């Protein structure tokens, strides 16, 4: 079906590939597939039920099933002193994430955490967050979490474990830990690090191995190769003018995505035509958010990345940049790239010496990272646009260590193994066959959130506490230390890894609180400890605790040695890319419904992973979306459905990790396919020499855009091409400098006048919003934040397939340009709170009305669900509760609900309210303290969480508010403003900054 695609001239837009081809076969498929799909029902009716229904309806009492569930409330017998019912409290805590940690403020209602937000003071979150952080609240209340200690599959208890281990421990103390091993995930935590070193000194012969399925291991190894030392790399993208990424998705799946997204956005924030912005070159095999934001994107297979970098290095050298150790590279071996592109890039990097930055992705080999370090060093970027921090209290993932451990396990040298977090049976490299190795360990102990793939194969399973219910501590990538303080007692009696490790070390059960305080008594010194401890807990971090920035010296010799083993790929090969999923990451969020239903930013797929391939590959293979293919590596094979995304390098297959979980989770059990089965120690980032073949079967994937493969015909694609430049207004920086008002001049329409005098809305607060398309990178954090704040239900794969997902803010994704290498744009769409709202006029029962502050409000109690408002909404942002989506919600998940927001019943329309509950709380607070609201007092959930600060909310009646200032900018435009609906949300046009040499 993709055969008759032709490159298009100039800038034109289309939504997805399907609309670009008009193929009768595909249409037949669409016709045959979807009507069938829409006929099936969530629940079938049994004969008995049918009869009872018939009876009910005949008696005209068919409404008996519609009553709301009865809820019982239990009051406090004695009210706690500090809690005012209905008034939330905020606590600072920290979410550890690999080697990084995000400082958070968590909203707590009567002792139950309900919403997570970033902590402004914290260097890794900067007050913002990402989709994973937002979704953690649902993980806390996951009903499938491990609920009790298991011993050989039988229910046991924590004291039993401790007693049991105490006896065992004596034995190991005598043998100095012979046969004892710990396999932990990556962490950066003062207390864990302290316990680890105490453990290693108590058991000197014990092994401590660290493994994380998704890690920056090869980046650190590359640094070690080039400079002989491990250090945390922390880019300062806000200072960079020219950025080159090599398979590096620093905006979404990278380990420091919030800071990097903010930094990049800051480097591109344009207030007027006098401003300038950075330029991003992205060379990548798949299509990432970073690639989508790039000014120049080059699709290139991951296995050719080294070759490309070598070519760039030689190009830079030929222009006088001194790079040590390049002798190993020959010009000849690096040929085959677009010389114009390469030379323009080199020129740009050289002219911006000290303000450029090259970043390579974690999937690339250490040798490449060594070369990238050398390039950054030679261009004077190090210390300016990227800093290296000393590593403190952290353990780095190491695959060779894991290999060694598995060998020891296989040889029977390991008698007791503690698995501190992680799920190695599922996610360890497939060639290690961790599951088999585990059988040789007589005593294995696992600490994990869920009864997972590993749990059934260990002797002891201990439920792991969620970070919101444990005491702990962590360090951010730059070394800033903070404390993890619990907001709630462990829901299922789970134990934190600090407590488990301590018990493992000492044989005593000590509370986490004591352990963490003990560590911090060293960090904070003894003087005024309690006072300073309180301050740390209150602030959520220890100020000025960042690690030392270290000056790394490049070693020419070791670099040359590294470069001589740099693999310069020669022959054509198909490759397979493993990337962490933007939904479930490495698999840890598989049971999180918000993330599963969160559309993949690029493919817009939900509830599944797929073999994502480019158009050329699809054409060559003659496959279409939903076709199941077989992907075969040297060691294993996997069957999974195809999803075609234009712009993916030819002969590259991208598969997201983290799916295909086999555990009894009610959300994520069995969704998608497990890509770890294909991933070996030699192919952690990508596998080469992959064979693919068709199977002839189909599997229905579900996406939230292009729902039904509807946009196939030319008619639609032509129209979209015509329409989109007006919907998403875009120009190059140069065009913008020449024509600053370009966004406003794009639509011609008759004067927007009314037959009568319109309401002015010029008194009091008038709420409005701006969304800067130039910095929005489509990361989805806002969607999840909104879902968490506003109790938005998930609907499941089938209902998403019917087009009934409930997200109040969605991110539209469009392509433009040539099909082999298109540009991608994002546009977040939520209710724009039109002053002249089409939805309000048509509601027969006046359930949706305008308030005095310009909000388009919804009275859920009044709504009878005619759906007329949604029909008349030009943005299609209203969401209807087709079923009672919250009916079967387990009680514990209800604890994640925001009590300030109604949980909507079936048959009711819902939509974005500009977080009206936040507006009212802030207004009340301001009133109680006898003052006016200040700009920024109210942050909507989406604005609050946006890592790029693309969303700004405020009072448009106040000329000094940020939102008013932004609305005055020349790039400001009202989407569909020509309909005279007067939306309160306006957009700032997108800009790209292409290199003039390449246009």
């Amino acid at each position: 079906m993709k055969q008759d695609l032709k490159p298009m001239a100039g800038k034109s837009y289309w939504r997805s590939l399907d609309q670009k081809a008009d193929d009768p076969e595909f249409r037949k498929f669409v016709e045959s597939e979807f009507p069938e799909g829409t006929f099936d029902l969530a629940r079938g009716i049994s004969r008995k039920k049918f009869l009872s229904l018939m009876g009910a309806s005949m008696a005209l009492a068919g409404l008996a099933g519609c009553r709301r569930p009865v809820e019982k409330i239990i009051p406090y017998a004695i009210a706690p002193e500090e809690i005012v019912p209905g008034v939330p409290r905020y606590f600072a805590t920290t979410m550890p994430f690999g080697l990084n940690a995000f400082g958070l403020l968590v909203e707590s209602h009567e002792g139950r955490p309900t919403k997570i937000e970033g902590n402004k003071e914290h260097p890794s979150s900067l007050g913002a967050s990402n989709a994973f952080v937002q979704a953690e609240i649902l993980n806390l209340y996951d009903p499938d979490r491990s609920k009790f200690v298991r011993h050989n599959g039988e229910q046991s208890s924590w004291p039993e474990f401790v007693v049991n281990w105490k006896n065992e421990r004596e034995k190991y103390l005598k043998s100095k830990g012979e046969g004892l091993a710990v396999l932990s995930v990556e962490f950066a935590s003062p207390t864990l690090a302290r316990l680890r070193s105490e453990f290693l000194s108590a058991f000197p012969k014990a092994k401590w191995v660290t493994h994380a399925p998704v890690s920056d291991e090869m980046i650190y190894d590359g640094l070690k190769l080039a400079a002989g030392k491990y250090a945390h790399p922390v880019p300062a993208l806000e200072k960079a003018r020219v950025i080159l990424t090599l398979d590096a998705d620093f905006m979404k799946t990278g380990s420091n995505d919030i800071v990097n997204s903010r930094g990049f956005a800051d480097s591109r924030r344009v207030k007027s035509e006098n401003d300038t912005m950075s330029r991003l070159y992205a060379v990548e095999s798949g299509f990432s958010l970073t690639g989508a934001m790039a000014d120049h994107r080059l699709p290139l297979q991951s296995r050719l990345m080294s070759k490309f970098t070598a070519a760039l290095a030689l190009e830079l050298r030929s222009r006088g940049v001194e790079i040590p150790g390049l002798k190993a590279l020959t010009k000849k071996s690096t040929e085959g790239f677009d010389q114009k592109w390469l030379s323009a890039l080199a020129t740009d990097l050289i002219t911006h010496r000290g303000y450029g930055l090259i970043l390579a992705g974690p999937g690339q080999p250490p040798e490449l990272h060594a070369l990238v370090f050398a390039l950054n060093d030679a261009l004077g970027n190090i210390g300016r646009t990227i800093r290296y921090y000393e590593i403190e209290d952290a353990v780095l993932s190491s695959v060779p260590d894991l290999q060694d451990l598995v060998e020891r396990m296989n040889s029977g040298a390991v008698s007791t193994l503690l698995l501190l977090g992680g799920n190695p049976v599922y996610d360890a490299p497939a060639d290690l066959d961790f599951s088999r190795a585990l059988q040789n360990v007589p005593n294995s102990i696992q600490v994990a959130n869920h009864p997972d793939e590993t749990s059934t194969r260990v002797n002891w399973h201990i439920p792991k506490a969620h970070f919101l219910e444990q005491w702990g501590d962590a360090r951010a990538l730059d070394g800033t230390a903070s404390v993890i303080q619990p907001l709630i007692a462990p829901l299922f009696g789970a134990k934190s890894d600090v407590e488990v490790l301590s018990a493992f070390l000492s044989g005593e059960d000590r509370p986490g609180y004591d352990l963490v305080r003990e560590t911090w008594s060293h960090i904070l010194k003894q003087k005024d400890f309690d006072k300073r401890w309180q301050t740390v807990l209150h602030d959520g971090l220890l100020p000025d605790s960042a690690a030392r920035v270290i000056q790394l010296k490049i070693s020419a010799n070791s670099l040359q040695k590294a470069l001589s083993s740099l693999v310069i790929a020669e022959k054509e090969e198909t490759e397979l890319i493993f990337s962490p999923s933007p939904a479930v990451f490495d698999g840890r969020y598989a049971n999180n419904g918000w993330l599963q239903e969160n559309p993949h930013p690029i493919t817009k797929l939900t509830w599944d992973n797929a073999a994502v391939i480019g158009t050329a590959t699809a054409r060559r293979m003659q496959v279409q979306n939903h076709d199941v293919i077989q992907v075969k590596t040297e060691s294993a094979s996997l069957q999974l459905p195809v999803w075609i995304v234009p712009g993916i390098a030819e002969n590259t297959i991208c598969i997201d990790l983290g799916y295909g979980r086999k555990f009894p989770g009610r959300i994520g059990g069995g969704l998608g396919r497990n890509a770890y089965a294909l991933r070996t120690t030699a192919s952690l980032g990508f596998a080469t020499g992959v064979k693919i073949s068709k199977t002839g079967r189909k599997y229905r994937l579900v996406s939230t855009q292009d729902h039904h493969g509807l946009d196939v015909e030319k008619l639609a694609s032509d129209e979209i091409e015509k329409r989109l430049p007006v919907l998403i207004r875009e120009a190059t920086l140069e065009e913008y400098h020449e024509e600053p008002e370009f966004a406003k001049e794009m639509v011609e329409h008759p004067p927007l006048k009314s037959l009568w005098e319109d309401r002015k809305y010029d008194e009091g607060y008038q709420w409005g919003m701006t969304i800067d398309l130039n910095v929005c990178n489509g990361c989805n954090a806002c969607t999840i934040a909104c879902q968490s704040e506003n109790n938005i239900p998930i609907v499941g794969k089938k209902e998403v397939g019917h087009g009934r997902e409930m997200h109040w803010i969605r991110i539209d994704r469009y392509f433009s340009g040539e099909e082999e290498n298109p540009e991608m744009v994002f546009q977040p769409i939520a209710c724009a709170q039109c002053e002249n709202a089409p939805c309000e006029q048509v509601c027969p029962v006046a359930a949706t009305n305008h308030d005095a502050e310009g909000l388009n409000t919804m009275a859920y109690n009044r709504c009878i669900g005619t759906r007329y408002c949604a029909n008349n909404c030009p943005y299609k942002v209203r969401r209807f509760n087709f079923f009672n989506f919250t009916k079967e919600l387990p009680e514990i998940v209800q604890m994640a609900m925001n009590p300030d927001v109604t949980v909507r019943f079936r048959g009711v329309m819902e939509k974005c309210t500009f977080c009206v509950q936040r507006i009212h709380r802030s207004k009340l607070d301001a009133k109680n303290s006898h003052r006016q609201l200040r700009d920024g007092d109210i942050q909507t959930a989406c604005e609050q969480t946006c890592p790029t600060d693309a969303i700004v909310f405020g009072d448009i009646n106040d000329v000094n508010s940020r939102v008013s200032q932004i609305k005055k900018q020349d790039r400001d435009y009202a989407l569909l403003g020509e309909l005279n609906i007067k939306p309160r949300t306006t957009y700032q046009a997108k800009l790209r900054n292409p290199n003039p040499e390449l246009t």
Partner: protein
Amino acid sequence: MNLIKPKKQPSPDATVFSGSAPLPEPLITGKQTFASITERISAIVEGKPPKGWMIAFSFSVSILLMLLGTIGYLADEGIGIWGLNNPVGWGWAIVNFVFWVGIGHAGTLISAVLHLFRQKWRTSINRFAEAMTLFAVICALVFPTIHVGRIWMLHYVFPIPNQMEMWPNFRSPLLWDVFAVSIYFAVSILFWFTGLIPDLATLRDRAKTRARKFIFGALALGWRGSNRHWQHYELAYLVLAGLATPLVLSVHSVVSTDFATSILPGWHTTIFPPYFVAGAIFSGFAMVMTLGIIAREVFGLKDFITLKHLDKMSKIMLVTGSMVGYSYATEFFIAWYGGNGYEMFAFINRAFGPYAWAYWTMISCNVIIPQLFWFKKIRSNVKILFVLSILVNVGMWFERFVIVVSSLSRDFLPSAWAYYSPTIFDIMTFIGTFGLFFTFFLLFLRFLPMVSMTEVKGVLPAADPHYKAPEEVKEND
């Protein structure tokens, strides 16, 4: 006047005159006298039902039960059992609503408008056409009732005084619908009942059982056929006809504002009110024709519903069908002439987009097929008329489908576009309303005179004060 008996029976082969002006064809054929009309029509109501009726009735009732079951399931589960999705918030339910309301147009038009214009040929068909109207409106009312998300809160649409002083939104066309359709229903039922009174009196007079005597006696409201009664009756009938006439235009105009007042491309057009009214009359007449043909075949009423009636109805369908076709053309012209890109696309998309099959079904049935009515041969071929009348209603259903669904499925932002397909429950609900309709209709045929005896007698030549039997005319010559 129906009490005056003719002196002589007209001869079987004589031409029957209505009044003094000769007509090319008689309105009522056969050797009908006042007595024979009473006998023929009352016999249907008084005798045992034919076997065909029993079969049809059991079939209709089972389909009605299916409807009730489906509605029960809908109330239990939610609107999600239908095929609706996010852009397409209205699907078959609203299509069916407009379809049934449209069908409900012909009855009042025939009774009221044609009465005012003194079209005497209406007398044979007005009774069952009015009944059809009532039942069609009942079917139509099912849909807005069950399509809301919270049926149990439906009373919010009525202006019921309440302690919150919360009124419905009078700016919403859906509310206008509530009033327009309920007023139409109320006036139609009054009009129908008023027309029935003399016939009910006839049945009362002929009643042999106590129950019949009591029921028809109560329903006849003490009608004795006195001159005074007739005077009041005719005046009341005229006033009701006058009241009903604007409603014929208003109901579907108001229904059309459900679409016309929105901002959705494809809905937002000023041509909708007249276009909807024309379409409604078109479909209503097609339904009357379908039912009339069935009635005349099954109950042997060929003398009452003659080819002449069918001919006249065909001509009305030709006119209204052409008006509908003209409206389609105008819509396209204005979409182009108006220069609004969204609207232009909405119409091109209708004709060539994913719903093109529905669009061309509509064009074939509504524009091309009525053109066959130009031919007298077709107008006088009952079998062909029967098929065509059904096709017209198929076309009219698709018209509403095209308007409602194709406009919604692709509006302003392409990211929100989606295809809509019905589920089995959409289909069952629609078919179920036919069960409801025919159950009512068959009960009507069984228990009430399906042809207005009073009015048919009024158009017999014998009812004319200047009537002379043909032989008398001959003698005078």
